[in-house]
């Protein structure tokens, strides 16, 4: 299916050096101060300040992430982000309004959104990467607009009409589009994961979910049988505890599957993506395990709910630390030799539209 002509391992030009792990030294308590002050300013300004808050959030996380002794930086302008948010909000309103309309206008609006979206998403990649730097050298996204239409519109359509059988294929093509077109200064990144590997991850997760559902379903039904046979013995009265036990097994199973599948999938697919991404000759290694990620996600969720949201800064820091610190850069040569590209300017509109529509295309 995949006709990627690139070899799996190119010849090494120089002997490999010591791996450079990513470090994250942010702290929840520190970030809480930034988060709450910016939240207050956002509320007081009826949301306008959220663009400035977002820049600060990204700067906090980028600047606390370092590799080879130097940290990353974010340079996005809040005003650009604000303009992007306004456009994204307008599209969101148009979308919500049109799906309730059930008329010809619905099709017109949805069609217009479908046509603009790939362009906006491609611009959002450009904006995000252009505004990311390490040691003063910026990243760039050089994907063509045509590629965005192929990846989002054509592949999206294929995925829908094949009832998501093509979803792993679409995912692989999207990542290839993103990573093959990413540059760090004048050094190009490349993506080497084949479609088959994506199918393996997707099928593995599907099999695990089905197996779990099967086990929980069987024990739940078993518990129901036990409860009803006991009830027959004791003159038709059903023991309420037995009923609770049966329901507990069924719903508990459902919740366990529901909360684990997302983080487990994220861990496996993120490993696959980054282990097969190279920056020039330098390799990247990502070792996220599903279980710690499930634990962090679930405990974060519980604590955020119990604290009515005030745990959010700690939750974000915890998650970022685990994810970032599972990544190592395996340098093939000197990290001092990257050269910056010529400056260019890019709008932020795309990125904001993408966030508002909640397409999870990051990382």
């Amino acid at each position: 299916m995949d006709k990627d002509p690139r070899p799996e391992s190119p010849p090494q030009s120089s002997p490999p050096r010591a791996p450079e792990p990513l470090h994250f030294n942010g702290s929840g308590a520190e970030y809480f101060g930034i988060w709450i002050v910016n939240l207050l300013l956002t509320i007081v300004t009826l949301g306008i300040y959220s663009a400035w808050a977002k820049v600060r959030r990204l700067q906090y996380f980028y600047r606390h992430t370092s590799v080879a002794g130097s940290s990353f930086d974010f340079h996005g302008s809040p005003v650009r982000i604000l303009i992007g948010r306004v456009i994204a909000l307008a599209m969101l309103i148009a979308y919500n309004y049109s799906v309730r309309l059930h008329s010809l206008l619905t099709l017109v609006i949805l069609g217009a959104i479908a046509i603009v979206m790939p362009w906006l998403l491609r611009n959002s990649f450009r904006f995000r990467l252009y505004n990311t730097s390490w040691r003063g050298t910026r990243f760039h996204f050089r994907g063509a607009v045509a590629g965005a239409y192929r990846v989002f519109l054509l592949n999206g359509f294929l995925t829908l009409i094949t009832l998501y059988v093509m979803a792993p294929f679409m995912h692989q093509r999207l990542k290839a589009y993103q990573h093959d077109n990413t540059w760090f200064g004048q050094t190009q990144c490349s993506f080497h994961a084949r479609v088959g590997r994506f199918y393996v991850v997707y099928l593995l997760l599907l099999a695990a979910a089905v197996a779990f559902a099967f086990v929980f379903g069987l024990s739940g039904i078993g518990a129901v049988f036990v409860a009803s046979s006991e009830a027959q013995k004791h003159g038709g009265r059903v023991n309420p505890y037995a009923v609770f036990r049966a329901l507990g097994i069924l719903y508990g199973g459902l919740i366990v599957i529901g909360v684990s599948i997302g983080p487990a999938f994220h861990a496996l697919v993120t490993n696959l993506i980054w282990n097969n991404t190279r920056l020039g000759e330098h390799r990247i290694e990502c070792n996220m395990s599903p279980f710690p990620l499930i634990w962090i996600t679930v405990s974060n969720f519980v604590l955020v709910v119990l604290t009515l949201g005030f745990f959010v800064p700690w939750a974000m820091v915890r998650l970022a630390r685990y994810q970032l610190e599972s990544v190592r850069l395996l340098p093939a040569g000197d990290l001092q030799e990257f050269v910056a590209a010529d400056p260019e300017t890019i709008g932020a509109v795309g990125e904001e539209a993408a966030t508002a529509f909640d397409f999870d295309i990051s990382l």
Partner: protein
Amino acid sequence: MLSANYFDGRSTRVRVVNLSVVGEDLVIVGEDVDVRVPFARVKVDERLGRAPRRLRLEDGTFCEVRDLDALDTLLSATAHRDGWVDRMQRRLHFVLLALVACVALAAAGYKWVLPWAAAQGAQHLPPAVGRTLTVQTLKILDGRILLPSKISPERRQSLSDQFHALRLPGGGSPASELLFRRSSQLGANAFTLPDGTIIVLDDLITLINDDPQILAVFAHELGHAHGRHSLQLLLQSSAVGAFWTFYVGDISNLLAAAPAALLQAKYSQGLEREADDYGAALLMQNGMSPALLADALRKLTESRPGSSKGGYLSTHPSTEERLRHLGVLAATFKNK
């Protein structure tokens, strides 16, 4: 003297340099670097946690400083002052103040802004929305919680006729549909659905057992229908649910329903008062005393003293206050 890393903005090469302030200028000296620029033209990053701070020069070069306290000492010798947001983010008392202010604003938003916005929304939604919601609600409740009424058809017809003969304070007769149902769980109760349809339960009719007083309860429910209170509550709870889902994230769907369900149970004191006022006005319009509604309420209270299990009053809070208010309205009726 302050040690820093210097980057030329054109490559990833790290150069170790020393920074110092001489007069009005920043002096950068190190491997192949010897720069002196007026400090006024240097842009200094905010101090974000323990992240390295950068001093950015106009030509795209910059110095990255890790010793933040030493940098603060250096900066104190210059005209540079950190921005006010930057300072607030780092001072414990401002952070606590922001925390208190956020909680207060969230509470105020929940208590005043949300009901106001929901009321505006309820007034402006097309009637078809209320109709659809009512049909869906009835589809779920009928046959499960709501069963067919056992009141005799003649009695129902008579109540229905009296209900439709009422004159509304704004003129015209009730557009609401009146439905009779029976429920073992909900007790003596009556409620209004999003399109204004009023459901009255058998227990309420047998308990009050006095047509004018039952009509007074209908008048109160017509107040809810007139104010579109049911739709307002629905909008309110779905807004809370949507916010919660957005805030907590993707696995929250199970929990998103919980606050919505909690909210749905109770009309606020304000909405009750509004419905009472409307009901009283309606009764007076029809030559009946607001005291009838007070009498009906009293019967409902006495039927379940101190009980919180179901019933009209569990969804209609603080009866004593309402009885007092209705007493005042009834007095004005007598004086006319």
